[in-house]
């Protein structure tokens, strides 16, 4: 349904242009959850935003059902914006503090000219109920809600427009464990019920392991590995993916401690030559510093950008 090819985003930086997203390809199928993982500065959030043109890409192509998004104008751009929604890590920052939840959701429907006033009112109540918010939420302001409830509001605002795809940017990272489980379960239920696809952006591998059908790993602006969830977590092939998986402390004292990968994450403004992971890679050979590895399919559905994979 969604296909992204060669996407590039640059930011101005004191050391020159920072290539936040440097030639990324990805697809999201109908009803599929794609997890996008990586550490800070890898460009995963920027990539999510660039797909919706919340930040403007300088190169590459984003297409939905084969139609290039860049050329869309007027009603067709509006239709694209309805089909692809975005949920932020901190929904509070994206909610108008002076408008009630009812007004916020109704406003989203009104912009897209979906239904008359009574239809919209009915739809808003239906969605609030579906995401587990009390009926009186319509008349309340965002600050009256807890973190978990605000994330339900963020999800409701996306869901009210009946999208096909929701880009979720760290949607549970600010929440406590007990609340996080509630929101993840809700997302899974909604996906089944409405046939939604998700692009789930997160730094938390345990969360992605639960929610994603397919996983992409990003490092300094590039995708380094992509595979089905059980392959990616079961048999990771890129040394960076392995380092990430091994670095997560497991909630079981009988397990050995995390293996430690040395070195700091380099600045995306001055990425290393060749394979960007080579200065930290325990397996690096001479070639890794000189030659950029391209994504290579090593098994059906499993691609790795590593000279040694």
């Amino acid at each position: 349904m969604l296909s992204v090819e060669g996407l590039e985003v640059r930011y101005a930086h004191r050391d020159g242009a920072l290539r936040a997203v440097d030639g990324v390809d990805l697809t999201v199928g109908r009803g599929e959850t794609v997890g996008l993982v990586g550490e800070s500065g890898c460009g995963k959030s920027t990539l999510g935003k660039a797909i919706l043109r919340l930040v403007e890409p300088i190169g590459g192509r984003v297409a939905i059902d084969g139609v290039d998004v860049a050329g869309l104008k007027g009603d067709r751009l509006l239709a694209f914006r309805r089909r692809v929604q975005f949920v932020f890590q901190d929904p509070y920052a994206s909610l108008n503090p002076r408008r009630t939840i009812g007004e916020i959701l109704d406003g989203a429907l009104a912009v897209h000219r979906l239904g008359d006033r009574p239809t919209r009112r009915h739809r808003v109540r239906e969605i609030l109920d579906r995401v587990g918010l009390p009926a009186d939420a319509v008349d309340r302001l965002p600050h009256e809600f807890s973190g978990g409830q605000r994330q339900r509001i963020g999800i409701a605002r996306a869901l009210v427009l009946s999208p096909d795809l929701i880009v979720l940017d760290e949607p549970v990272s600010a929440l406590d464990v007990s609340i996080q489980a509630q929101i993840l379960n809700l997302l899974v239920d909604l996906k089944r019920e409405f046939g939604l696809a998700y692009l789930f952006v997160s730094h938390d591998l345990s969360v992605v392991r639960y929610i994603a059908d397919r996983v992409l790993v990003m490092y300094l602006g590039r995708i380094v590995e992509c595979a089905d969830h059980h392959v990616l977590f079961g048999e990771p092939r890129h040394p960076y993916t392995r380092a990430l998986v091994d670095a997560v402390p497991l909630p079981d004292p009988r397990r050995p401690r995390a293996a430690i990968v040395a070195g700091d994450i380099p600045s995306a403004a001055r990425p290393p030559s060749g394979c960007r992971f080579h200065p930290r890679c325990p397996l690096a050979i001479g070639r890794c510093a000189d030659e950029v590895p391209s994504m290579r399919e090593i098994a059906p559905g499993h691609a790795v950008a590593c000279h040694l994979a």
Partner: protein
Amino acid sequence: MIDPTAAARRPPLFALEGLEVSFPGRPVVRGLDLSVAEGETVALVGESGCGKSTTALAAMRLLPRSGRIDAGRIAFEGRDLAVLSPAELRDLRGRRLAMIFQEPMTSLNPVLTIGRQIAEVLIRHEHLSRRAARARAIELLDLVRIAEPHRRIDDHPHRLSGGMRQRVMIAIAVACRPKLLFADEPTTALDVTIQAQVLDLLDRLRRDLGMALVLITHDLGVVAQYADRVVVMYAGHKVEEATTAELFARPLHPYTRGLLAAAPRLDTGLHHSEGRLAEIPGAPDGGVDHPGCAFAPRCPEVRADCRVTPPRPLAIGDRLVACPPAVASAPRANAMRGAHDAVG
């Protein structure tokens, strides 16, 4: 890690006895007992608002102006920190006791070089000359594994990555070889590969310097891998305390069990196509006072009595569980002893 049973036998280095802390109109820590033996790592776990950070701030006597210690003793090296004067506290903090926080940038002075900030502690507490303090600061940067310490020492904090800033905070905290370090979510703001480096560093320093560590975290993986003993907090109360091995093998309190079940796991974890995550219904309401157990409104196993009577912490072997029904139905209930002399 050290042998937890040996640690339990040793006299505590540090103990909180009946600590109560409140902010205006809101009790945050409600009658907390906690002891830390020399050289051991005790984890304080719980969700936001459970009082774990406030406990550490109160123990260091670093509460914000609006916070108050209403009751309790803070025993450390034969003194009660709860009644020490500001001058006595200043002498202890940074020398015998230290603390690091989640966001090192807010604790570092942005206009001073990191060398100056490390040296300052050494000049104040160890009365070193500027030159000696600078030499020692370079050694400390090396100790916390900052590459090229001679060059880095003249950097300002903004030149450093998040992981390096946390290393600098650790260098400042351990400069005078304290006996006890409070680490409040020390790696929560860091990336996972950097988190592993920093946790490993803290654990190595604990061992090499013979320092005890109170690790405040919400991350059960961090607890499992680095703590000797665990104290689980909910709404200002200690609900369960056990050795790390026991707590993970056999969590008893319904809240502890709920937390462990709710967290998605990388190892034995579930995929959404196989089932739902276990939920704890509702949300913590730390501010609201229930006459009975604070967890009762969310507890899947709640009984009528739980809403009325505050649960007494009961001892099972060397662990404590503040849930009489859970203790009664524990598989080793016959091994229960000392319930009568449990801490009330």
